[in-house]
């Protein structure tokens, strides 16, 4: 029974394809891809609607408010109302704008985010686009976002848009390096760029209950944290939402967009967040594997989306609690801290691997990361002088 | 009908000629760089096409050359564009026709 529930979507797709059995090969392929694509799109669009509501609700709770609660029971129909509002708003295009580029930018921003969702394994045998170099595909497609952001900034012909786009590109290019290099230890240990192989390498349990997830290794934990921070930057989320900092440059590269085009940017941001979180789950949190061996009867996709949900909650939580950083702080942090730490993760993973994955390797790689972390923070904080903190009213 | 090696070669020579057109006929330094990048990419396609159409099992030599040449093209673009910026700071132009002095 649990076997059937686990594979229910795979079996369903096979059933849907069975009437085409005698048809030519290319037709079957096209129909098969269309089914996968529409499944992913429907799933993530509904997740996007849910997420936009949940984010407002959770933020409101953090700030001691109620959040949206007028439309439908508990405000559940709020995303629908938002969507209708966005659709019927006037679509304003500035007179001096570069019309074609201005029009194409939202599409170009959304397309890579959706494409990147294609290579993530959502469950056992449930990778929509299973290619050998899936991880590379993810990053290759993701790198096209920068050009799209530039198109938005340039096409609007507005100085706030241009400044926002420049900020966005600068920080995305800078954080792409740590993002890529933190993936490196995982790829190195598994010996494959395919997400399915990476999930398979994290299967099994030590002593019957500790899963072999990479996040439980010292190098994996450090790499996961670095990956998550870089992911926050890549998806332009607080505390790194400098490109669209409302108090500084209106809305960055989205300033001149309104109505449905703005909604597309909004959607692309969330899709990017889903994609990064999905990849983090795949790389470090064991993908669709159950965390405890006696819970394997629960279908694999449930586990994947549970982990995804936890990561997305952390995204919202961080947004609710941390203030925005300054531009120079963001850039300094990338080059002076993130990059050296990412390289240290690679080194620690190599040590762990050559110590035959035992307890001594665990300790050695932990020691390497701890020593480099302490030295690096000492070095970076060496010439900073902070006045002793005084509290005027709290005492 | 499946595309033959000839079709790929004709395509890449067309791309090469377009790159040549951009490099020869434009006066703007960045256009010339774009043209050079296109010519390099066309040559790259040839390596992969020859590798794919070679008979029998063989080493992935063409693919290796393509990967290396992509890396070199990236380095070339970086240095080339840095040169354009340096020249622009100095002479306030990117028009290659006006760069006719040996004196800095």
């Amino acid at each position, binding site marked *: 029974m649990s076997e059937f529930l686990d594979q229910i979507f795979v079996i369903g797709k096979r059933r849907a394809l069975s009437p085409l059995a005698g048809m030519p090969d290319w037709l079957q392929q096209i129909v098969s891809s269309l089914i996968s694509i529409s499944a992913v799109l429907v799933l993530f669009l509904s997740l996007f609607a849910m997420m936009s509501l949940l984010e407002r609700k959770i933020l409101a709770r953090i700030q001691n408010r109620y959040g949206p609660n007028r439309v439908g029971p508990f405000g559940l129909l709020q995303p629908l109302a938002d969507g209708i509002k966005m659709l019927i708003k006037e679509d304003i295009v500035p007179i001096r704008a570069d019309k074609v580029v201005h029009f194409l930018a939202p599409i170009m921003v959304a397309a890579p985010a959706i494409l990147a969702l294609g290579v993530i394994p959502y469950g056992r045998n449930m990778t929509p686009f299973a290619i050998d170099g899936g991880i590379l595909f993810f990053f290759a497609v993701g790198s096209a976002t920068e050009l799209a952001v530039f198109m938005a900034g340039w096409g609007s012909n507005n100085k706030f848009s241009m400044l926002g786009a420049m900020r966005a590109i600068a920080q995305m290019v800078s954080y792409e390096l740590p993002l890529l290099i933190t993936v490196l230890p995982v790829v190195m240990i598994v010996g*494959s760029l395919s997400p399915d192989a990476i999930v398979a390498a994290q299967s099994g349990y030590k002593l019957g209950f500790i899963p072999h997830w990479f996040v439980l290794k010292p190098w994996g934990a450090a790499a996961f944290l670095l990956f998550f921070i870089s992911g926050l930057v890549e998806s332009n989320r607080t505390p790194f939402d400098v490109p669209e900092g409302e108090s500084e440059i209106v809305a960055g590269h989205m300033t001149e967009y309104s109505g449905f085009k703005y909604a597309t940017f909004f959607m692309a941001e969330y899709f990017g967040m889903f994609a990064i979180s999905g990849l983090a789950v795949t790389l470090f949190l064991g993908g669709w594997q159950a965390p405890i061996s006696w819970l394997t009867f629960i279908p694999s996709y449930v586990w994947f989306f549970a982990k995804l949900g936890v990561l997305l909650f952390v995204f919202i939580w961080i947004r609710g609690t941390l203030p925005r950083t300054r531009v120079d702080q963001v850039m300094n942090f990338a080059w002076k801290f993130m990059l050296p730490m990412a390289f240290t993760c690679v080194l620690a993973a190599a040590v762990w691997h050559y110590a035959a994955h035992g307890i001594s390797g665990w300790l050695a790689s932990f020691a390497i990361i701890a020593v480099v972390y302490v030295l690096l923070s000492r070095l970076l904080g060496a010439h900073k002088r902070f006045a002793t903190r005084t509290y005027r009213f709290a005492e | 009908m499946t595309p033959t090696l000839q079709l790929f070669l004709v395509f890449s020579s067309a791309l090469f000629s*377009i790159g040549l057109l951009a490099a020869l006929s434009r006066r703007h330094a960045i256009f010339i760089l774009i043209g050079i990048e296109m010519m390099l990419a066309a040559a790259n396609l040839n390596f992969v096409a020859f590798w794919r159409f070679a008979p029998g099992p063989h080493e992935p030599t063409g693919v290796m050359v393509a990967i290396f040449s992509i*890396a070199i093209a990236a380095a070339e673009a970086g240095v080339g564009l840095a040169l354009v910026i340096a020249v622009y700071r100095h002479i306030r132009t990117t028009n290659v026709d006006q760069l006719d002095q040996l004196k800095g």
Partner: protein
Amino acid sequence: MNSVAFIAIAVVTLGAALAAALLRKLIHAALVLAVAFIGLAAFYFLLGAEFVGLVQIFVYVGAVAILIVFTILLTRREGETIRGPNWSGVIIATAVFSGLAWAVYKTPSLAAVAPTFEALTVKRIGETLMTDYIWPLLCIGLLLTAALVGALVLVMEGKRE
């Protein structure tokens, strides 16, 4: 390999490349250049070299196109007229193309159809890169480092005395 796919990709790529060579606005040229590079990556996919296609997108669209766009922004001047292509360039390019195409069509050994082959896995590429091609790989690493440092030195604002 599919001829429909070949023709579609070829038309898009060549059109984008022509636009990149002929457009008057530099930014537009840089953007359609990215489209041409994506088309080339599609060709690599068609040829069964997926890794090269992905690297092509990663390097050209993610890095080179961004570099070009940034350079355009840094060297922009108001009121500068950018002329279109001149005719001598068109003539030379056409002559080169007809010469190359003629040579390709007159060579009988090039009319080959692709043999069936086992897919080239990323693992195989990695192993080849780390064994037979280790020296070129190291040289490329050195070259890229040198290029990085060189580009920085060129662009850095020198201290004026």
